[in-house]
Protein backbone atom coordinates (compact mmCIF):
# COMPACT_ATOMS: atom_id res chain seq x y z
CA UNK A 1 0.00 0.00 0.00
CA UNK A 2 2.83 2.33 0.90
CA UNK A 3 4.45 1.36 -2.31
CA UNK A 4 1.41 2.34 -4.31
CA UNK A 5 1.28 5.69 -2.53
CA UNK A 6 4.97 6.28 -3.21
CA UNK A 7 4.59 5.20 -6.81
CA UNK A 8 1.59 7.45 -7.30
CA UNK A 9 3.51 10.43 -5.90
CA UNK A 10 6.49 9.80 -8.11
CA UNK A 11 4.34 9.43 -11.19
CA UNK A 12 2.62 12.67 -10.30
CA UNK A 13 5.99 14.38 -10.11
CA UNK A 14 6.83 12.97 -13.51
CA UNK A 15 4.44 15.32 -15.24
CA UNK A 16 5.96 18.62 -14.08
CA UNK A 17 9.42 17.15 -14.68
CA UNK A 18 8.59 16.28 -18.27
CA UNK A 19 6.92 19.65 -18.63
CA UNK A 20 10.07 21.53 -17.65
CA UNK A 21 12.20 19.28 -19.86
CA UNK A 22 9.96 19.99 -22.81
CA UNK A 23 10.09 23.73 -22.14
CA UNK A 24 13.88 23.64 -22.13
CA UNK A 25 13.98 21.68 -25.37
CA UNK A 26 11.39 24.00 -26.89
CA UNK A 27 13.60 26.99 -26.18
CA UNK A 28 16.70 25.34 -27.60
CA UNK A 29 15.87 26.17 -31.18
CA UNK A 30 15.04 29.71 -30.27
CA UNK A 31 18.55 30.21 -28.88
CA UNK A 32 19.86 30.61 -32.37
CA UNK A 33 19.78 34.02 -33.97
CA UNK A 34 17.55 34.16 -36.98
CA UNK A 35 14.23 32.88 -38.14
CA UNK A 36 13.44 29.48 -36.57
CA UNK A 37 11.34 28.45 -39.55
CA UNK A 38 14.20 29.10 -41.93
CA UNK A 39 16.59 27.19 -39.69
CA UNK A 40 14.30 24.20 -39.33
CA UNK A 41 13.55 24.10 -43.01
CA UNK A 42 17.18 23.79 -43.96
CA UNK A 43 19.34 25.13 -46.71
CA UNK A 44 17.50 23.62 -49.63
CA UNK A 45 13.98 24.61 -48.68
CA UNK A 46 11.69 26.50 -50.96
CA UNK A 47 9.82 29.56 -49.80
CA UNK A 48 6.60 27.52 -49.64
CA UNK A 49 8.18 24.97 -47.34
CA UNK A 50 9.48 27.70 -45.06
CA UNK A 51 6.06 29.31 -44.94
CA UNK A 52 4.44 26.00 -44.15
CA UNK A 53 6.82 25.40 -41.28
CA UNK A 54 6.16 28.91 -40.06
CA UNK A 55 2.44 28.14 -39.86
CA UNK A 56 2.99 24.75 -38.24
CA UNK A 57 5.21 26.22 -35.59
CA UNK A 58 2.88 29.17 -35.18
CA UNK A 59 5.72 31.65 -35.28
CA UNK A 60 3.37 34.58 -35.67
CA UNK A 61 1.60 33.64 -32.45
CA UNK A 62 2.67 34.47 -28.90
CA UNK A 63 5.30 32.29 -27.29
CA UNK A 64 3.03 30.25 -25.04
CA UNK A 65 0.80 29.37 -27.99
CA UNK A 66 3.89 28.26 -29.89
CA UNK A 67 4.78 26.04 -26.97
CA UNK A 68 1.25 24.60 -26.88
CA UNK A 69 1.50 23.82 -30.59
CA UNK A 70 4.88 22.21 -30.01
CA UNK A 71 3.53 19.97 -27.26
CA UNK A 72 0.53 19.03 -29.38
CA UNK A 73 2.81 17.99 -32.20
CA UNK A 74 5.08 16.04 -29.90
CA UNK A 75 2.20 14.14 -28.34
CA UNK A 76 1.00 13.23 -31.81
CA UNK A 77 4.48 12.01 -32.64
CA UNK A 78 5.22 14.82 -35.03
CA UNK A 79 8.75 16.05 -34.52
CA UNK A 80 9.06 17.86 -37.80
CA UNK A 81 11.02 16.95 -40.88
CA UNK A 82 14.70 16.27 -41.31
CA UNK A 83 15.67 18.18 -44.38
CA UNK A 84 18.72 15.99 -44.80
CA UNK A 85 16.87 12.73 -45.09
CA UNK A 86 13.59 14.22 -46.35
CA UNK A 87 11.76 12.00 -43.91
CA UNK A 88 9.71 12.91 -40.89
CA UNK A 89 12.01 12.85 -37.91
CA UNK A 90 9.82 10.31 -36.15
CA UNK A 91 10.38 7.81 -38.96
CA UNK A 92 14.13 8.31 -38.85
CA UNK A 93 14.06 7.82 -35.10
CA UNK A 94 11.92 4.69 -35.24
CA UNK A 95 14.30 3.15 -37.71
CA UNK A 96 17.46 3.89 -35.75
CA UNK A 97 16.27 3.54 -32.19
CA UNK A 98 16.63 -0.27 -31.93
CA UNK A 99 20.25 -0.13 -33.01
CA UNK A 100 21.11 2.19 -30.14
CA UNK A 101 19.04 0.14 -27.72
CA UNK A 102 20.90 -2.96 -28.81
CA UNK A 103 24.19 -1.41 -27.74
CA UNK A 104 22.87 0.15 -24.54
CA UNK A 105 20.95 -2.91 -23.35
CA UNK A 106 23.72 -5.37 -24.16
CA UNK A 107 26.33 -3.24 -22.45
CA UNK A 108 24.05 -2.71 -19.46
CA UNK A 109 23.32 -6.40 -19.07
CA UNK A 110 26.93 -7.51 -19.45
CA UNK A 111 28.11 -4.79 -17.06
CA UNK A 112 25.60 -5.90 -14.45
CA UNK A 113 26.08 -9.64 -14.92
CA UNK A 114 29.86 -9.39 -14.80
CA UNK A 115 30.25 -6.30 -12.69
CA UNK A 116 28.24 -7.26 -9.65
CA UNK A 117 30.02 -10.57 -9.02
CA UNK A 118 33.39 -8.93 -9.56
CA UNK A 119 32.46 -6.13 -7.19
CA UNK A 120 31.26 -8.61 -4.56
CA UNK A 121 34.38 -10.72 -4.93
CA UNK A 122 36.76 -7.81 -4.47
CA UNK A 123 34.76 -6.60 -1.48
CA UNK A 124 34.99 -10.00 0.20
CA UNK A 125 38.59 -10.77 -0.74
CA UNK A 126 40.05 -7.52 0.52
CA UNK A 127 43.67 -6.30 0.08
CA UNK A 128 45.16 -8.42 -2.62
CA UNK A 129 46.05 -8.48 -6.26
CA UNK A 130 42.37 -8.16 -7.19
CA UNK A 131 42.03 -5.05 -5.07
CA UNK A 132 45.03 -3.25 -6.58
CA UNK A 133 44.16 -4.41 -10.06
CA UNK A 134 40.64 -3.14 -9.72
CA UNK A 135 41.82 0.21 -8.40
CA UNK A 136 44.15 0.69 -11.35
CA UNK A 137 41.53 -0.48 -13.82
CA UNK A 138 38.99 1.90 -12.31
CA UNK A 139 41.33 4.87 -12.60
CA UNK A 140 42.24 3.99 -16.17
CA UNK A 141 38.67 3.39 -17.27
CA UNK A 142 37.62 6.74 -15.90
CA UNK A 143 40.35 8.58 -17.80
CA UNK A 144 40.44 6.94 -21.19
CA UNK A 145 38.12 8.49 -23.76
CA UNK A 146 35.62 5.87 -24.90
CA UNK A 147 35.79 6.86 -28.54
CA UNK A 148 39.57 6.50 -28.51
CA UNK A 149 39.37 3.08 -26.90
CA UNK A 150 37.00 2.02 -29.66
CA UNK A 151 39.56 3.07 -32.25
CA UNK A 152 42.33 1.21 -30.42
CA UNK A 153 40.23 -1.95 -30.33
CA UNK A 154 39.54 -1.57 -34.04
CA UNK A 155 43.26 -1.16 -34.64
CA UNK A 156 44.18 -4.28 -32.68
CA UNK A 157 41.38 -6.64 -33.59
CA UNK A 158 40.66 -5.53 -37.13
CA UNK A 159 43.68 -3.80 -38.63
CA UNK A 160 46.40 -5.89 -36.99
CA UNK A 161 44.82 -9.23 -36.09
CA UNK A 162 41.96 -9.34 -38.55
CA UNK A 163 39.83 -11.29 -36.10
CA UNK A 164 36.82 -9.03 -36.16
CA UNK A 165 35.09 -6.97 -38.84
CA UNK A 166 35.78 -3.32 -39.31
CA UNK A 167 33.63 -0.37 -38.25
CA UNK A 168 31.21 -0.39 -41.13
CA UNK A 169 28.01 -0.71 -39.20
CA UNK A 170 25.92 -3.53 -37.92
CA UNK A 171 26.31 -6.04 -40.72
CA UNK A 172 28.51 -7.07 -43.59
CA UNK A 173 27.37 -5.20 -46.68
CA UNK A 174 27.01 -8.49 -48.49
CA UNK A 175 24.45 -9.75 -45.99
CA UNK A 176 20.78 -9.05 -46.26
CA UNK A 177 19.03 -7.35 -43.40
CA UNK A 178 16.70 -9.84 -41.68
CA UNK A 179 12.93 -9.20 -41.54
CA UNK A 180 12.25 -6.51 -39.01
CA UNK A 181 10.73 -7.92 -35.84
CA UNK A 182 12.38 -5.85 -33.13
CA UNK A 183 14.62 -3.76 -35.32
CA UNK A 184 17.71 -5.11 -33.59
CA UNK A 185 19.51 -6.90 -36.36
CA UNK A 186 21.17 -9.62 -34.32
CA UNK A 187 17.94 -10.47 -32.51
CA UNK A 188 15.89 -10.43 -35.69
CA UNK A 189 18.36 -12.73 -37.41
CA UNK A 190 18.18 -15.12 -34.48
CA UNK A 191 14.39 -15.03 -34.38
CA UNK A 192 14.07 -15.69 -38.10
CA UNK A 193 16.65 -18.44 -38.03
CA UNK A 194 19.14 -16.77 -40.39
CA UNK A 195 22.20 -18.23 -38.84
CA UNK A 196 24.85 -16.65 -41.09
CA UNK A 197 23.35 -13.20 -40.71
CA UNK A 198 23.19 -13.69 -36.96
CA UNK A 199 26.87 -14.61 -36.83
CA UNK A 200 27.84 -11.58 -38.83
CA UNK A 201 25.71 -9.31 -36.67
CA UNK A 202 27.25 -10.68 -33.49
CA UNK A 203 30.75 -10.26 -34.90
CA UNK A 204 29.99 -6.63 -35.58
CA UNK A 205 28.56 -6.19 -32.10
CA UNK A 206 31.65 -7.38 -30.26
CA UNK A 207 33.85 -4.31 -30.56
CA UNK A 208 31.34 -1.55 -29.80
CA UNK A 209 29.89 -3.45 -26.85
CA UNK A 210 33.40 -4.27 -25.60
CA UNK A 211 34.36 -0.60 -25.80
CA UNK A 212 31.35 0.52 -23.81
CA UNK A 213 31.62 -2.29 -21.28
CA UNK A 214 35.32 -1.77 -20.62
CA UNK A 215 34.82 1.88 -19.86
CA UNK A 216 31.49 1.90 -18.03
CA UNK A 217 31.25 -1.40 -16.17
CA UNK A 218 33.72 0.06 -13.70
CA UNK A 219 30.82 2.13 -12.34
CA UNK A 220 28.96 -1.01 -11.33
CA UNK A 221 32.05 -2.77 -10.05
CA UNK A 222 33.25 0.09 -7.88
CA UNK A 223 29.84 0.89 -6.45
CA UNK A 224 29.01 -2.74 -5.71
CA UNK A 225 32.35 -3.13 -4.04
CA UNK A 226 31.98 -0.02 -1.88
CA UNK A 227 28.46 -0.86 -0.86
CA UNK A 228 29.16 -4.50 -0.04
CA UNK A 229 32.27 -3.50 1.90
CA UNK A 230 30.22 -1.10 3.97
CA UNK A 231 27.59 -3.74 4.57
CA UNK A 232 30.16 -6.27 5.65
CA UNK A 233 31.43 -3.79 8.24
CA UNK A 234 27.98 -2.96 9.51
CA UNK A 235 26.57 -3.75 12.91
CA UNK A 236 24.11 -6.40 11.86
CA UNK A 237 26.79 -8.43 10.10
CA UNK A 238 29.03 -8.21 13.14
CA UNK A 239 26.14 -9.36 15.28
CA UNK A 240 25.49 -12.25 12.93
CA UNK A 241 29.14 -13.20 13.06
CA UNK A 242 28.99 -13.15 16.85
CA UNK A 243 25.96 -15.40 16.67
CA UNK A 244 28.01 -17.85 14.66
CA UNK A 245 26.26 -17.59 11.32
CA UNK A 246 28.22 -18.92 8.38
CA UNK A 247 30.08 -16.51 6.13
CA UNK A 248 27.83 -17.43 3.26
CA UNK A 249 24.68 -16.55 5.16
CA UNK A 250 26.22 -13.27 6.24
CA UNK A 251 27.13 -12.55 2.66
CA UNK A 252 23.56 -13.16 1.57
CA UNK A 253 22.26 -10.71 4.16
CA UNK A 254 24.87 -8.15 3.24
CA UNK A 255 24.03 -8.47 -0.42
CA UNK A 256 20.33 -8.08 0.17
CA UNK A 257 21.04 -4.78 1.92
CA UNK A 258 23.54 -3.67 -0.66
CA UNK A 259 21.06 -4.11 -3.48
CA UNK A 260 19.30 -0.71 -3.41
CA UNK A 261 22.35 1.51 -4.04
CA UNK A 262 23.47 -0.86 -6.75
CA UNK A 263 20.07 -0.57 -8.42
CA UNK A 264 20.48 3.20 -8.39
CA UNK A 265 23.88 2.88 -10.01
CA UNK A 266 22.41 0.74 -12.78
CA UNK A 267 20.09 3.64 -13.55
CA UNK A 268 23.02 6.03 -13.62
CA UNK A 269 24.85 3.59 -15.89
CA UNK A 270 22.10 3.92 -18.48
CA UNK A 271 22.37 7.70 -18.18
CA UNK A 272 26.07 7.46 -19.02
CA UNK A 273 25.52 4.92 -21.76
CA UNK A 274 23.11 7.14 -23.66
CA UNK A 275 25.73 9.83 -23.92
CA UNK A 276 28.48 7.34 -24.67
CA UNK A 277 26.40 5.70 -27.39
CA UNK A 278 26.59 8.94 -29.36
CA UNK A 279 30.36 8.79 -29.57
CA UNK A 280 30.76 5.05 -29.97
CA UNK A 281 28.13 4.89 -32.71
CA UNK A 282 30.06 7.54 -34.61
CA UNK A 283 33.26 5.55 -34.34
CA UNK A 284 31.67 2.30 -35.50
CA UNK A 285 29.28 3.86 -38.06
CA UNK A 286 26.56 2.02 -36.20
CA UNK A 287 23.59 3.72 -37.79
CA UNK A 288 21.77 4.31 -34.53
CA UNK A 289 20.21 7.36 -32.95
CA UNK A 290 23.51 8.67 -31.64
CA UNK A 291 25.13 8.81 -35.02
CA UNK A 292 21.96 10.36 -36.43
CA UNK A 293 22.08 13.10 -33.79
CA UNK A 294 25.72 13.84 -34.46
CA UNK A 295 25.20 14.04 -38.20
CA UNK A 296 22.28 16.37 -37.63
CA UNK A 297 24.29 18.60 -35.32
CA UNK A 298 27.15 18.88 -37.76
CA UNK A 299 24.90 19.71 -40.71
CA UNK A 300 22.69 22.10 -38.75
CA UNK A 301 19.60 19.95 -39.15
CA UNK A 302 17.83 21.16 -36.04
CA UNK A 303 14.57 19.22 -35.89
CA UNK A 304 16.25 15.84 -35.31
CA UNK A 305 18.56 17.30 -32.67
CA UNK A 306 15.64 18.79 -30.78
CA UNK A 307 13.76 15.48 -30.95
CA UNK A 308 16.80 13.51 -29.85
CA UNK A 309 17.47 15.70 -26.83
CA UNK A 310 13.82 15.51 -25.78
CA UNK A 311 13.73 11.74 -26.12
CA UNK A 312 17.02 11.28 -24.29
CA UNK A 313 15.80 13.40 -21.38
CA UNK A 314 12.44 11.65 -21.23
CA UNK A 315 14.13 8.27 -21.37
CA UNK A 316 16.50 9.04 -18.51
CA UNK A 317 13.74 10.60 -16.41
CA UNK A 318 11.66 7.45 -16.79
CA UNK A 319 14.67 5.23 -16.06
CA UNK A 320 15.42 7.17 -12.88
CA UNK A 321 11.77 6.88 -11.86
CA UNK A 322 11.82 3.11 -12.37
CA UNK A 323 15.07 2.83 -10.47
CA UNK A 324 13.65 4.82 -7.56
CA UNK A 325 10.56 2.62 -7.50
CA UNK A 326 12.73 -0.49 -7.50
CA UNK A 327 14.79 1.01 -4.68
CA UNK A 328 11.68 1.63 -2.64
CA UNK A 329 10.35 -1.83 -3.36
CA UNK A 330 13.55 -3.37 -2.03
CA UNK A 331 14.14 -0.99 0.86
CA UNK A 332 10.99 0.74 2.12
CA UNK A 333 12.93 2.47 4.87
CA UNK A 334 13.79 5.52 2.79
CA UNK A 335 11.83 8.64 3.61
CA UNK A 336 8.90 9.19 1.33
Amino acid sequence: MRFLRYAARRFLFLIPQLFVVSVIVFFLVRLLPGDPAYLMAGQFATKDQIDQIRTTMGLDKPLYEQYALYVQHVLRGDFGMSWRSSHPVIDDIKQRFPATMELVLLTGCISVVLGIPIGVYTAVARKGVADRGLFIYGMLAGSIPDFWLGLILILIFFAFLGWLPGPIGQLDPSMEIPPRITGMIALDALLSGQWAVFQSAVAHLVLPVATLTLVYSTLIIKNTRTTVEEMLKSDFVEYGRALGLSSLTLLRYALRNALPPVVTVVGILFWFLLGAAVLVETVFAWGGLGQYAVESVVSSDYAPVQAFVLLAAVFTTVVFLLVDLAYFAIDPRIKT
Partner: protein
Amino acid sequence: MTTQPLPDTRKQPAAPTQGRGQFGSFIAFSRGRPGFLFGLVIVAITIFLACFGAIVAPCDPEHAIPEAGLLPPSPVHLLGTDVVGMDIFSRVISAPRIDLTIALVSTLIAFVCGVFLGVISGYFASGRGIGRVGSETIMRGADIVQAFPIFIFALALVCFRGPSTANVISALAFLNIPYFLRVTRGAVFQVRERPFVEAARCAGNTERGIAFTHVMPNALGPALANISPSIGFAILLTAGLSFVGAGVPKPTPEWGSMISIGAPNMMTGQWWSALFPGLALGVTILGYALVGDGILEFMDPTRRR
Protein backbone atom coordinates in the same frame (compact mmCIF):
# COMPACT_ATOMS: atom_id res chain seq x y z
CA MET B 1 64.17 42.49 51.43
CA THR B 2 65.16 42.05 47.87
CA THR B 3 62.40 40.90 45.65
CA GLN B 4 63.46 37.94 43.74
CA PRO B 5 61.97 37.54 40.38
CA LEU B 6 59.34 34.88 40.44
CA PRO B 7 60.38 31.67 38.81
CA ASP B 8 59.52 31.66 35.18
CA THR B 9 56.60 29.33 35.03
CA ARG B 10 55.80 29.91 31.45
CA LYS B 11 56.07 26.77 29.47
CA GLN B 12 59.02 26.46 27.18
CA PRO B 13 57.98 26.92 23.60
CA ALA B 14 57.22 23.54 22.02
CA ALA B 15 60.12 21.84 20.33
CA PRO B 16 59.88 22.49 16.63
CA THR B 17 58.20 19.22 15.74
CA GLN B 18 55.13 21.21 14.74
CA GLY B 19 57.22 23.74 12.91
CA ARG B 20 56.63 22.20 9.50
CA GLY B 21 53.42 24.06 8.99
CA GLN B 22 50.90 23.52 6.25
CA PHE B 23 53.34 23.24 3.40
CA GLY B 24 55.63 20.86 5.19
CA SER B 25 52.88 18.43 6.08
CA PHE B 26 51.77 18.59 2.46
CA ILE B 27 55.25 17.51 1.35
CA ALA B 28 55.20 14.65 3.83
CA PHE B 29 51.79 13.65 2.57
CA SER B 30 52.93 13.54 -1.03
CA ARG B 31 56.05 11.60 -0.29
CA GLY B 32 54.30 8.31 0.31
CA ARG B 33 51.89 8.64 -2.53
CA PRO B 34 53.41 8.06 -5.97
CA GLY B 35 50.03 8.36 -7.65
CA PHE B 36 49.50 11.84 -6.26
CA LEU B 37 53.01 12.92 -7.25
CA PHE B 38 52.46 11.55 -10.72
CA GLY B 39 49.25 13.53 -10.97
CA LEU B 40 50.98 16.71 -9.84
CA VAL B 41 53.69 16.23 -12.43
CA ILE B 42 51.08 15.79 -15.15
CA VAL B 43 49.21 18.89 -14.05
CA ALA B 44 52.44 20.88 -14.03
CA ILE B 45 53.36 19.63 -17.49
CA THR B 46 49.98 20.51 -18.96
CA ILE B 47 50.10 23.98 -17.47
CA PHE B 48 53.59 24.46 -18.87
CA LEU B 49 52.50 23.24 -22.28
CA ALA B 50 49.42 25.43 -22.18
CA CYS B 51 51.63 28.45 -21.71
CA PHE B 52 54.61 27.51 -23.84
CA GLY B 53 53.58 24.52 -25.91
CA ALA B 54 53.17 26.27 -29.22
CA ILE B 55 56.51 28.01 -28.71
CA VAL B 56 58.60 24.95 -27.93
CA ALA B 57 56.99 22.91 -30.66
CA PRO B 58 59.51 21.91 -33.34
CA CYS B 59 57.07 22.48 -36.20
CA ASP B 60 54.18 24.86 -36.73
CA PRO B 61 51.20 22.93 -35.39
CA GLU B 62 48.88 24.15 -38.12
CA HIS B 63 51.23 23.87 -41.07
CA ALA B 64 50.12 21.15 -43.43
CA ILE B 65 52.51 19.52 -45.89
CA PRO B 66 50.42 17.12 -47.96
CA GLU B 67 53.47 15.36 -49.44
CA ALA B 68 54.60 14.48 -45.95
CA GLY B 69 51.30 12.91 -45.05
CA LEU B 70 51.06 9.87 -42.79
CA LEU B 71 54.73 9.47 -42.06
CA PRO B 72 55.40 7.06 -39.19
CA PRO B 73 57.31 8.25 -36.10
CA SER B 74 60.88 9.20 -36.91
CA PRO B 75 63.61 11.41 -35.50
CA VAL B 76 62.32 14.30 -37.63
CA HIS B 77 58.68 13.84 -36.75
CA LEU B 78 58.80 12.34 -33.27
CA LEU B 79 55.25 11.09 -33.35
CA GLY B 80 54.75 11.00 -37.09
CA THR B 81 52.50 13.13 -39.25
CA ASP B 82 48.81 12.93 -39.86
CA VAL B 83 47.04 12.60 -43.17
CA VAL B 84 47.57 16.22 -44.24
CA GLY B 85 51.16 16.29 -43.11
CA MET B 86 50.89 18.19 -39.82
CA ASP B 87 53.47 17.13 -37.26
CA ILE B 88 51.69 15.20 -34.54
CA PHE B 89 54.18 15.89 -31.78
CA SER B 90 53.88 19.63 -32.24
CA ARG B 91 50.12 19.39 -32.30
CA VAL B 92 49.96 17.18 -29.23
CA ILE B 93 51.98 19.63 -27.17
CA SER B 94 50.15 22.67 -28.53
CA ALA B 95 46.71 21.27 -27.76
CA PRO B 96 46.78 21.83 -23.96
CA ARG B 97 46.51 25.56 -24.57
CA ILE B 98 42.96 25.43 -25.84
CA ASP B 99 41.89 22.33 -23.93
CA LEU B 100 43.11 23.66 -20.62
CA THR B 101 41.78 27.15 -21.26
CA ILE B 102 38.31 25.82 -21.94
CA ALA B 103 38.45 23.41 -19.03
CA LEU B 104 39.85 25.91 -16.55
CA VAL B 105 37.49 28.75 -17.39
CA SER B 106 34.39 26.56 -17.48
CA THR B 107 35.32 24.81 -14.23
CA LEU B 108 35.97 28.09 -12.44
CA ILE B 109 32.64 29.50 -13.57
CA ALA B 110 30.90 26.30 -12.53
CA PHE B 111 32.72 26.38 -9.19
CA VAL B 112 31.73 29.94 -8.36
CA CYS B 113 28.10 29.51 -9.39
CA GLY B 114 27.81 26.01 -7.97
CA VAL B 115 29.22 26.94 -4.56
CA PHE B 116 27.06 30.05 -4.35
CA LEU B 117 23.92 28.09 -5.22
CA GLY B 118 24.99 25.24 -3.00
CA VAL B 119 25.33 27.50 0.01
CA ILE B 120 21.89 28.99 -0.57
CA SER B 121 20.17 25.67 -1.16
CA GLY B 122 21.99 24.06 1.75
CA TYR B 123 21.68 26.77 4.34
CA PHE B 124 18.09 27.68 3.68
CA ALA B 125 16.91 24.13 3.05
CA SER B 126 14.84 23.96 6.17
CA GLY B 127 12.81 26.76 7.56
CA ARG B 128 10.13 28.82 6.03
CA GLY B 129 9.68 31.55 3.53
CA ILE B 130 11.56 32.62 0.52
CA GLY B 131 14.77 30.89 1.53
CA ARG B 132 13.09 27.51 1.49
CA VAL B 133 11.39 28.21 -1.81
CA GLY B 134 14.67 29.31 -3.33
CA SER B 135 16.44 26.25 -2.02
CA GLU B 136 13.83 23.86 -3.41
CA THR B 137 13.78 25.63 -6.77
CA ILE B 138 17.52 25.39 -7.05
CA MET B 139 17.46 21.67 -6.31
CA ARG B 140 14.69 20.95 -8.79
CA GLY B 141 16.57 23.01 -11.37
CA ALA B 142 19.67 20.91 -10.77
CA ASP B 143 17.60 17.75 -11.12
CA ILE B 144 16.24 18.90 -14.46
CA VAL B 145 19.68 19.80 -15.80
CA GLN B 146 20.97 16.42 -14.72
CA ALA B 147 18.07 14.65 -16.45
CA PHE B 148 19.84 15.24 -19.74
CA PRO B 149 22.81 12.97 -20.39
CA ILE B 150 25.66 15.40 -20.12
CA PHE B 151 27.29 14.85 -23.46
CA ILE B 152 24.00 15.05 -25.31
CA PHE B 153 23.10 18.29 -23.59
CA ALA B 154 26.53 19.74 -24.33
CA LEU B 155 26.10 18.71 -27.95
CA ALA B 156 22.68 20.33 -28.11
CA LEU B 157 23.85 23.55 -26.46
CA VAL B 158 26.76 23.90 -28.82
CA CYS B 159 24.54 23.02 -31.77
CA PHE B 160 21.91 25.57 -30.94
CA ARG B 161 24.23 28.34 -29.91
CA GLY B 162 26.69 27.87 -32.67
CA PRO B 163 30.13 26.23 -32.53
CA SER B 164 32.62 28.53 -30.93
CA THR B 165 35.03 28.32 -28.02
CA ALA B 166 32.92 30.66 -25.91
CA ASN B 167 29.85 28.50 -26.41
CA VAL B 168 31.73 25.35 -25.47
CA ILE B 169 32.92 27.05 -22.31
CA SER B 170 29.46 28.25 -21.34
CA ALA B 171 27.88 24.87 -22.12
CA LEU B 172 30.44 23.03 -19.98
CA ALA B 173 30.18 25.58 -17.18
CA PHE B 174 26.41 25.27 -17.10
CA LEU B 175 26.49 21.49 -17.07
CA ASN B 176 29.05 21.24 -14.28
CA ILE B 177 27.22 23.54 -11.87
CA PRO B 178 25.03 20.75 -10.38
CA TYR B 179 28.09 18.80 -9.20
CA PHE B 180 29.59 21.69 -7.28
CA LEU B 181 26.13 22.59 -6.07
CA ARG B 182 25.41 19.18 -4.55
CA VAL B 183 28.82 18.75 -3.04
CA THR B 184 28.73 22.18 -1.39
CA ARG B 185 25.18 21.64 -0.22
CA GLY B 186 26.21 18.45 1.55
CA ALA B 187 29.08 20.24 3.25
CA VAL B 188 26.84 23.14 4.25
CA PHE B 189 24.43 20.70 5.92
CA GLN B 190 27.24 19.61 8.17
CA VAL B 191 28.79 22.99 8.84
CA ARG B 192 25.58 24.76 9.79
CA GLU B 193 25.08 22.42 12.75
CA ARG B 194 28.31 23.54 14.33
CA PRO B 195 28.31 25.65 17.51
CA PHE B 196 30.02 28.63 15.97
CA VAL B 197 27.09 29.12 13.63
CA GLU B 198 24.75 29.27 16.56
CA ALA B 199 27.13 31.67 18.25
CA ALA B 200 27.13 33.89 15.20
CA ARG B 201 23.36 33.84 15.25
CA CYS B 202 23.34 34.86 18.90
CA ALA B 203 25.75 37.67 18.16
CA GLY B 204 23.13 39.16 15.92
CA ASN B 205 24.31 38.34 12.40
CA THR B 206 21.66 38.07 9.71
CA GLU B 207 21.04 34.61 8.30
CA ARG B 208 22.41 35.69 4.94
CA GLY B 209 25.48 37.10 6.62
CA ILE B 210 26.09 33.85 8.47
CA ALA B 211 25.58 31.82 5.34
CA PHE B 212 28.21 33.64 3.34
CA THR B 213 30.71 34.89 5.88
CA HIS B 214 30.78 31.99 8.28
CA VAL B 215 29.35 28.86 6.69
CA MET B 216 30.57 29.17 3.14
CA PRO B 217 34.34 29.37 3.81
CA ASN B 218 34.08 26.25 5.93
CA ALA B 219 32.06 24.36 3.36
CA LEU B 220 34.45 24.94 0.50
CA GLY B 221 36.53 21.83 1.08
CA PRO B 222 34.73 19.19 -1.01
CA ALA B 223 34.13 21.67 -3.81
CA LEU B 224 37.83 22.57 -3.92
CA ALA B 225 38.74 18.90 -4.04
CA ASN B 226 36.35 18.52 -6.95
CA ILE B 227 38.02 21.19 -9.08
CA SER B 228 40.80 19.00 -10.37
CA PRO B 229 38.68 16.05 -11.52
CA SER B 230 36.21 18.52 -13.03
CA ILE B 231 38.97 20.03 -15.11
CA GLY B 232 39.87 16.57 -16.33
CA PHE B 233 36.28 15.79 -17.13
CA ALA B 234 35.85 19.09 -18.96
CA ILE B 235 38.88 18.24 -21.10
CA LEU B 236 37.28 14.89 -21.89
CA LEU B 237 33.99 16.53 -22.87
CA THR B 238 35.77 19.09 -25.04
CA ALA B 239 37.63 16.28 -26.77
CA GLY B 240 34.41 14.38 -27.31
CA LEU B 241 32.67 17.42 -28.75
CA SER B 242 35.62 18.16 -31.02
CA PHE B 243 35.74 14.53 -32.07
CA VAL B 244 32.23 14.70 -33.46
CA GLY B 245 32.91 18.09 -34.98
CA ALA B 246 30.92 20.23 -32.57
CA GLY B 247 33.75 21.67 -30.55
CA VAL B 248 36.97 23.38 -31.48
CA PRO B 249 37.21 23.97 -35.26
CA LYS B 250 39.48 21.73 -37.27
CA PRO B 251 42.94 23.20 -37.88
CA THR B 252 43.32 24.28 -34.25
CA PRO B 253 45.27 21.56 -32.48
CA GLU B 254 42.99 19.83 -30.01
CA TRP B 255 43.33 16.24 -28.88
CA GLY B 256 39.76 15.25 -29.70
CA SER B 257 39.75 16.68 -33.19
CA MET B 258 43.18 15.14 -33.80
CA ILE B 259 41.69 11.76 -32.98
CA SER B 260 38.86 12.36 -35.41
CA ILE B 261 41.33 13.32 -38.15
CA GLY B 262 43.35 10.19 -37.50
CA ALA B 263 40.39 7.83 -37.04
CA PRO B 264 40.03 6.71 -40.67
CA ASN B 265 43.72 5.88 -40.71
CA MET B 266 43.40 3.61 -37.71
CA MET B 267 41.49 1.16 -39.78
CA THR B 268 44.24 0.93 -42.35
CA GLY B 269 46.83 0.41 -39.68
CA GLN B 270 48.43 3.84 -39.50
CA TRP B 271 47.97 4.09 -35.84
CA TRP B 272 50.08 7.06 -34.87
CA SER B 273 47.87 9.95 -35.83
CA ALA B 274 45.02 8.96 -33.51
CA LEU B 275 46.93 7.02 -30.86
CA PHE B 276 49.13 9.73 -29.38
CA PRO B 277 46.48 12.40 -28.84
CA GLY B 278 44.31 9.80 -27.12
CA LEU B 279 47.22 8.73 -24.96
CA ALA B 280 47.84 12.35 -24.05
CA LEU B 281 44.15 12.74 -23.17
CA GLY B 282 44.10 9.63 -21.02
CA VAL B 283 47.27 10.49 -19.14
CA THR B 284 46.14 14.08 -18.56
CA ILE B 285 42.72 13.14 -17.24
CA LEU B 286 44.28 10.46 -15.07
CA GLY B 287 46.70 13.01 -13.66
CA TYR B 288 43.97 15.47 -12.77
CA ALA B 289 41.85 12.73 -11.22
CA LEU B 290 44.76 11.54 -9.09
CA VAL B 291 45.42 15.08 -7.90
CA GLY B 292 41.77 15.43 -6.98
CA ASP B 293 41.85 12.16 -5.06
CA GLY B 294 44.99 13.25 -3.27
CA ILE B 295 43.56 16.60 -2.25
CA LEU B 296 40.45 14.86 -0.93
CA GLU B 297 42.57 12.48 1.11
CA PHE B 298 44.72 15.32 2.39
CA MET B 299 41.75 17.26 3.63
CA ASP B 300 39.99 14.35 5.23
CA PRO B 301 42.42 12.13 7.13
CA THR B 302 39.77 9.49 7.74
CA ARG B 303 39.90 8.57 4.06
CA ARG B 304 43.59 7.77 4.06
CA ARG B 305 44.17 4.19 3.10
